[in-house]
């Protein structure tokens, strides 16, 4: 694709910001978690675009590791959400306030 790398970086910035806003405005913990995945995905896209600009293949390896770590993170995060749901019968993040001083 002969599109300037800059355009892909711009797209990744927009998708990343949508993920940030999603974490800020949603109170359903699962949807907030999906927004984190959107952010990881946007940063992967930026890395791949830079790897196109500086050929060498190291960018692809870093994205591979990011995807592997994201898989581990999702497994533990969803287990935590299931645990919280068993305890409180809700996954609304506004109700998880028992540590509030």
């Amino acid at each position, binding site marked *: 694709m002969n599109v300037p790398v800059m355009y892909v970086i711009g797209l990744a910035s927009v998708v*990343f910001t*949508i993920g940030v806003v999603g974490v800020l*405005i949603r109170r359903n913990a699962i949807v907030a*978690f999906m927004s984190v995945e959107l952010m990881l*995905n946007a940063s992967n896209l930026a890395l*791949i675009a830079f790897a196109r600009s500086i050929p060498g*293949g190291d960018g692809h390896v870093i994205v591979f590791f990011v995807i592997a770590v994201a*898989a581990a993170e999702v497994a533990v995060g969803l287990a935590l959400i299931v645990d919280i749901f068993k305890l409180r019968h809700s996954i609304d993040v506004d109700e998880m306030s028992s540590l509030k001083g």
Partner: protein
Amino acid sequence: MASDLVLFFFLAVIAIATAASVILSRNAVYSAVFLVLNLATVAFFYILLYASFIAMIQLAVYAGAIVVLFLFVIMLLGADRGESGGTLPWQRPLAIGLGVLLVGLLFYLFVAAGPFPAPAASDLPPGFGGPEAVGSLLFADYVIPLEVTSVLLLAAMVGAVVLTRAERKEK
């Protein structure tokens, strides 16, 4: 060049629309389905940027495994209902304003950092981004991080099992 730009903007509109739908859908199941669409569109971009191996990994791991895990937990918890109105009325407008600020700042930074010239496709080494190129890097230069990743995945698996097992009776 022109057809590439048309394809890029077509896919970019799909990527942004599906990302916005993920965070705006009332029902968490719809969010998960839009997340699959977004991940698949990004996989298209990976192919267009000569990262074919990463595109396949993206489809298999993200769209295949991770989203299925999300859907499974949504179904398990029955958490596909609406949500409370929230306790802070100014949170949403503030979040959207800060988001606009963030995207403006990112654009400014990247435009200032330069146009990032990319070599022509014919100048790329043969097999760039394919399984062989990425695999030989992974098992030669990055073999220790690769092993650490396998330990991390094992730890995550053990952690998920420990967190969700049924409570045993205390003696």
